[in-house]
């Protein structure tokens, strides 16, 4: 597109001319240019310069022969030299000046009119007002009218231009622009119409004129921005031109066609531009198709056929560029819908498609040009005369320029001369680079739109072009990209071609490794046909794709490797340049050599032999004889070499390290697609993974192929061949191994010969330090560098920490912790401490075990403390070396585990009791409060009983040592007796038993929440096993807070401890009022069958403040044994609280006669009663 002249590429812009008053030209020009639509201007400083506007030519005679179709300069003439409007600018000084000035103005105007009249150019008169001069109002009007008359103008086309005032300047400019636009439109319309009438009247003598007229009308329409009309007339011109192809005889045939194509190209370009800018992409594409269809077959004379291809290529290139630059969006292409044949397909909307076509035609041109050049011998000699050939006045024509008496004369050319000229021109261009550039654009565009195959095809052509200009490095890179796609998708024939080129590229850059690799890959391609099919013959530089050609390529590669190749002298392989090929899992060379390695077992004991099978397969067409195979493992001492039994002398050539195991196989020949299976046994002393890494094949002196070993279980199909219908063979005879065999084997640890014992001692108790003995006993292995690891793990999962706590290692929130590990040392204390690693964390411990000779034992004790009841697992593992000073040896490990339950040993509970037969009225008890919230209430300044009971929840007898209460409140808020009691002889507490201890509590402070204190019980296991262990455990229990209150009333019953039948006794009820208020008490006595009573039965009494009232009854027992005393019921009116003595407190034992007690008996009885409670 850049080759086209500017006027063709851009839409036409109306042209105006300014004459006179050069000072304001800049202003006007800039304004006109910036408007929409813009107007270009020619600025002439004074009226003498008006001759630049070419005069009208005399009208054409009908008989006059037509020289060509379109004049080369016609368009540029109208764009740059013939204005549509001329503006005559006069200064107001001159217009209003003296008569001489006025006369000058008139003369100038007349001259101008004379020039423009012939061309029908429109006129505008502009009077530029110069302010200093001042207005002469009387004359101005007359002069203006005169000027207008003289110029034969409408009033609107006489413009007063005021450059000094901003507002007026703006108005003047806009009026100027309006007038210019209007007149220019009129001018172009008139011109167009004038020519159009000729067309309509068929007033033309030849086809050429028809085309020319259409073209002109179209251009005038474009000037007017009437795009539809322009398009229509361009189309007319195009069709008229097409008709000329067979009929025109004006020029010799070659040049005739060249001219027509040149015009057609221009017309098509115009149409495409208009369509694309109008957003009509589909139409533009359809038109291009039609255009190409029209001219494709018009190849022209064979000697200049290259011109045709060049022309075709240019059509596509220009269209591609237009498509790229046009803003029109690609319409949504219908997808998954069959595209009708007349609609463009997907790629036709992309410039890439046209670039590719342009490139392919350019390539065609290049070929034809080369051919034409080779055919014509005399190109060289006519070079001199060809120089004088220039483009002639008509578009698409060429002529010889001759100098005749200082004037130049155009002389028509003969076809031969023209052909020579074209050849000479063609020779000057480097088409290859242009082709590459086009293909690269296409390649990039396709890659961006994810059309990788299209891109690959462009890449392939690009690579071929590089190849043709011997840029092997670039070509190789491009070919490689393409090859990878063909490999992946299995397009074998295409791959064959590409590899053929790659082989040649490698040869070109003397890269022997690449050459051999590509040769081997080609030789192993799945092409099994013989070269009988003719269509497979032309397959690139490697020749026909056939089995025999594969064999040939294979042979050739081997010759190069052996250094015997005559053709490939540049490709050297010798001891200085040995060849090393690597084949990994993704290498395309897997088809050349595939190595599968399978161990027959999955695990093996150290030192025990295991069978290993190495299976090799090649798809090369000729049998390959391997001289030496080396199998490499991750444990290098297992590596071994397999020599070829047929070639004993060469097997030992090199690479055999001393001490390396060498096997010999009867023969190492790889036949096409047949497995070569080799089975050997292998031993490893080192436990861990033994994996086969590489199988290295050495062929001849200098070729080494290192092939990564693969497991049969995870083998991928080899590329390309997987699509072929081949006989499937399994790599190993054992079918199960063929599908599941692995290239790695697990070498186990040696069996441990050391016993690890955990002394199990039942469950542990919370609070105590539980001792777990661990014993290491050697039973055949000595222990060196032994390490004992201890792990405590929660059996229910989760950690040993309570989940709420954040700090991991604070001992408070650990449920179970490993406190210490202790062991006895027999040797010198300091020495053993030094080399003992000891590391203890709450749930993990690591200690080193001293070296043990065979048969020795060593033991240690783990001290574990439970803070909460929880079952845990203790894992203990011992790692050691059975021999001293061999760090390469594997450690032997012994593992043991034990579950230990942690249990609570004692649970402590408490109970408060009031003194016997004394009942205070506690107001808090009257209120209806739910039991759960209620604190136990105690009387202020009254002693109450506290009974603490401890229950043994464990399964072992415990020995209780002491019990004490530590008070929390200071300064005697509460007096507790006894504070601390050390048991004189330890109380053995059997499982399930409950032990009780009584304390007296006397609160001294009135408080709703009195902290009583914490009970501490000191105990230890009552076990003979731990006789030496004096560890004592303290279990603590915090007593709940109590409510202390002052009772307003206290009722106490008083009667003798026992009664004797028939003997009356006094039973009194004492009511104490501890308040400052008078208390009204109602009471009644219920009769009892066992007693006769005397005293008031029921009454209301008043108890004075801070005094007591006693009700007395005389009772006479009538029955024997424990008898219920008559129940006294009392009601305090003030507190609405009733009182009835409890059953237990109102029983008295009645003896038949006075009993006789001994003092010792009484003591015993008291003791019993305490125990019974």
């Amino acid at each position, binding site marked *: 597109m850049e080759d086209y002249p500017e006027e063709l590429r851009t839409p036409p812009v109306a042209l105006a001319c300014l004459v006179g008053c050069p000072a304001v030209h800049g202003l006007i020009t800039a304004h006109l240019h910036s408007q929409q639509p813009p107007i270009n201007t020619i600025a002439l400083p004074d009226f003498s310069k008006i001759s630049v506007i070419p005069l009208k030519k005399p009208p054409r005679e009908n008989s006059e022969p037509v020289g060509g179709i379109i004049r080369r300069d016609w368009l540029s003439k109208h764009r740059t030299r013939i204005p549509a409007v001329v503006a005559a600018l006069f200064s107001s000084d001159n217009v209003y000046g003296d008569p001489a000035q006025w006369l000058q103005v008139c003369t100038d105007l007349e001259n101008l009119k004379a020039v423009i009249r012939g061309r029908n150019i429109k006129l505008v008169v502009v009077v530029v007002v110069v302010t200093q001069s001042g207005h002469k109002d009387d004359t101005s009007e007359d002069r203006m009218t005169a000027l207008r008359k003289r110029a034969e103008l409408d009033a609107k086309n006489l413009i007063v231009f005021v450059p000094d005032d901003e507002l007026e300047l703006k108005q003047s400019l806009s009026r100027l622009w309006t007038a210019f636009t209007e007149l220019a439109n009129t001018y172009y319309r008139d011109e167009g119409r004038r020519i159009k009438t000729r067309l309509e009247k068929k007033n033309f003598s030849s086809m050429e004129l028809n085309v020319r007229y259409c073209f002109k009308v179209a251009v005038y329409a474009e000037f007017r921005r009437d795009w539809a009309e322009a398009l229509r007339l361009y189309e007319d011109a195009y069709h008229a031109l097409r008709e000329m192809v067979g009929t025109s005889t004006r020029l010799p045939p070659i040049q005739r066609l060249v001219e027509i194509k040149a015009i057609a190209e221009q017309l098509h370009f115009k149409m495409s531009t208009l369509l694309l800018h109008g957003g009509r992409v589909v139409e533009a594409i359809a038109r291009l198709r039609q255009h190409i269809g029209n001219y494709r077959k018009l190849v022209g004379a064979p000697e200049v056929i290259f011109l045709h291809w060049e022309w075709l290529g240019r059509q596509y290139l220009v269209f591609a560029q237009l498509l790229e630059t046009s803003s029109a969006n690609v319409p949504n292409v219908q997808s998954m819908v*069959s*595209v009708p044949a007349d609609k463009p397909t*997907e790629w036709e909307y992309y410039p890439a498609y046209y670039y590719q076509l342009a490139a392919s035609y350019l390539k065609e041109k290049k070929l034809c040009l080369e051919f034409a050049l080779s055919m014509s011998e005399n190109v060289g000699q006519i070079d001199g005369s060809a120089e004088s050939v220039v483009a002639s006045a008509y578009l698409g024509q060429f002529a010889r320029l001759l100098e005749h008496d200082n004037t130049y004369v155009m002389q028509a050319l003969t076809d031969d001369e023209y052909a020579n000229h074209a050849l000479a021109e063609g020779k000057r261009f480097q088409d290859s680079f242009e082709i590459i550039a086009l293909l690269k654009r296409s390649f990039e565009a396709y890659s961006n739109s994810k059309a990788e195959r299209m891109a690959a095809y462009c890449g392939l052509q690009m690579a071929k072009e590089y190849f043709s200009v011997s840029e092997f490095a670039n070509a190789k890179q491009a070919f490689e990209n393409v090859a990878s796609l063909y490999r992946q998708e299995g397009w074998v024939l*295409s791959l064959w071609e590409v590899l053929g080129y790659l082989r040649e590229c490698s040869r070109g850059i003397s890269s022997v490794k690449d050459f051999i690799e590509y040769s081997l890959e080609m030789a192993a391609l799945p092409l099994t046909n013989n070269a009988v099919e003719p269509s497979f013959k032309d397959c*690139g530089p490697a020749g026909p794709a056939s089995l025999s050609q594969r064999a040939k390529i294979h042979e050739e590669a081997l010759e190069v490797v052996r250094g015997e190749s005559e053709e490939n002298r540049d490709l050297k392989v010798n001891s200085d340049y040995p060849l090393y090929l690597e084949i990994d899992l993704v290498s395309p060379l897997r088809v050349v050599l595939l190595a599968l390695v399978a161990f027959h077992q999955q695990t093996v004991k150290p030192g025990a032999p295991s069978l290993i099978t190495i299976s090799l397969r090649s798809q090369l067409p000729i049998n390959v004889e391997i001289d030496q195979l080396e199998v490499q493992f991750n444990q290098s001492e297992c590596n071994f070499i397999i020599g070829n039994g047929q070639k004993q002398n060469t097997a030992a050539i090199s690479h055999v390290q001393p001490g390396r195991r060498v096997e010999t196989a009867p023969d190492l020949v790889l036949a096409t697609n047949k497995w070569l299976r080799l089975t050997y046994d292998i031993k490893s002393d080192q436990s861990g993974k033994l994996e086969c890494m590489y199988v290295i094949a050495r062929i001849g002196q200098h070729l080494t192929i290192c092939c990564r070993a693969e497991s049969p279980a995870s083998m991928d199909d080899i590329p390309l061949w997987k699509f072929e219908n081949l006989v499937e063979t399994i790599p190993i005879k054992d079918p199960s191994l063929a599908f599941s065999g692995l290239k790695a084997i697990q070498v186990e640890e040696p069996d441990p010969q050391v016993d690890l014992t955990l002394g199990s001692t039942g469950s542990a108790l919370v609070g105590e330090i539980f001792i777990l003995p661990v014993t290491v006993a050697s039973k055949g292995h000595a222990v060196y560098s032994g390490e004992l690891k201890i792990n405590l793990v929660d059996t229910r999962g989760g950690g040993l920490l309570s989940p709420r706590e954040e700090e991991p290692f604070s001992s408070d929130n650990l449920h179970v912790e490993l406190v210490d590990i202790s062991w006895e040392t027999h040797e010198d204390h300091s020495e053993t401490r030094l080399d003992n690693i000891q590391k203890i964390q709450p749930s993990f411990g690591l200690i080193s075990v001293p070296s043990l000779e065979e048969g020795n034992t060593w033991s240690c004790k783990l001290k574990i403390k439970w803070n909460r009841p929880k079952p845990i697992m203790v894992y203990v593992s011992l790692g050691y070396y059975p021999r001293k000073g061999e760090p390469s040896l594997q450690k032997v490990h012994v593992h043991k585990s034990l579950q230990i339950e942690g249990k609570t040993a004692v649970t402590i509970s408490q109970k408060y009791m009031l003194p016997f037969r004394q009942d205070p009225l506690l107001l808090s008890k009257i209120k209806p409060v739910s039991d759960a919230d209620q604190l136990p209430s105690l009387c202020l300044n009254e002693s109450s009983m506290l009974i603490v009971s401890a229950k043994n929840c464990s399964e072992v007898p415990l020995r209780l040592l002491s019990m004490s209460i530590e008070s929390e409140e200071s300064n005697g808020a509460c007096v507790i007796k006894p504070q601390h009691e050390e048991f004189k002889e330890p109380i053995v507490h059997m499982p399930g038993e409950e032990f009780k201890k009584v304390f007296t509590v006397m609160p001294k402070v009135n408080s709703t929440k009195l902290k009583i204190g914490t009970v501490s019980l000191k105990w230890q296991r009552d076990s003979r096993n731990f006789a030496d262990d004096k560890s004592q455990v303290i279990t603590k229990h915090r007593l709940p807070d109590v409510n202390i209150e002052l009772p307003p009333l206290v009722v106490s019953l008083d009667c003798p401890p026992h009664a004797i039948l028939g003997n009356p006794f006094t039973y009194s009820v004492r009511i104490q009022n501890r308040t400052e208020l008078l208390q009204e008490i109602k009471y009644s006595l219920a009769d009892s069958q066992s007693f006769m009573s005397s005293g008031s039965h029921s009454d209301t009494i008043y108890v004075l403040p801070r005094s007591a009232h006693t009700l007395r009854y005389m009772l006479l027992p009538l029955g024997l044994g424990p008898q219920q005393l008559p129940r006294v019921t009392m009601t305090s009116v003030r507190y609405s609280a009733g009182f009835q003595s409890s059953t237990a407190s109102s029983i008295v034992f009645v003896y038949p006669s006075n009993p006789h007690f001994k003092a010792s008996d009484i003591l015993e009885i008291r003791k019993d009663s305490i125990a019974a409670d």
Partner: protein
Amino acid sequence: MIVCVAVVGHQNNPLYIQSFTEADDALKLHHIVHCSLDVVDERVNNPKRSGPTLNETYLGVLYPTENYKVYGYLTNTKVKLIMVTTDLDVRDADVRNFYRGFHAAYVNAVSNPFHVPGKKITSKTFAEKVSTIVKSFG
């Protein structure tokens, strides 16, 4: 005249490709078929219009080259049937008809119990059948 037919598998690998020309342009036709797979991909991966064309297997013209027209057809098992013809004016119905026969031949060939899916079609019967269909075309 049909110059090339191809059956292309799931990995865009040729399962069967046969050209019917006298000239040595098998390779060129391979390239044309290979490039046309991009268009098939494009149409399959960007389904915009649904409706009656949802189950359409016939893809129509894939891409025009100067001398050939390439037609595509996608079976329900996503195997692509590609046809290259030198006739630039072919009736759609003829092409559809051709594909009907071609598809049927393909189905018969892969229904053979000895055929391994995904491998190249080497059946001689299939080749003969296809060549008959090709000859009777147009």
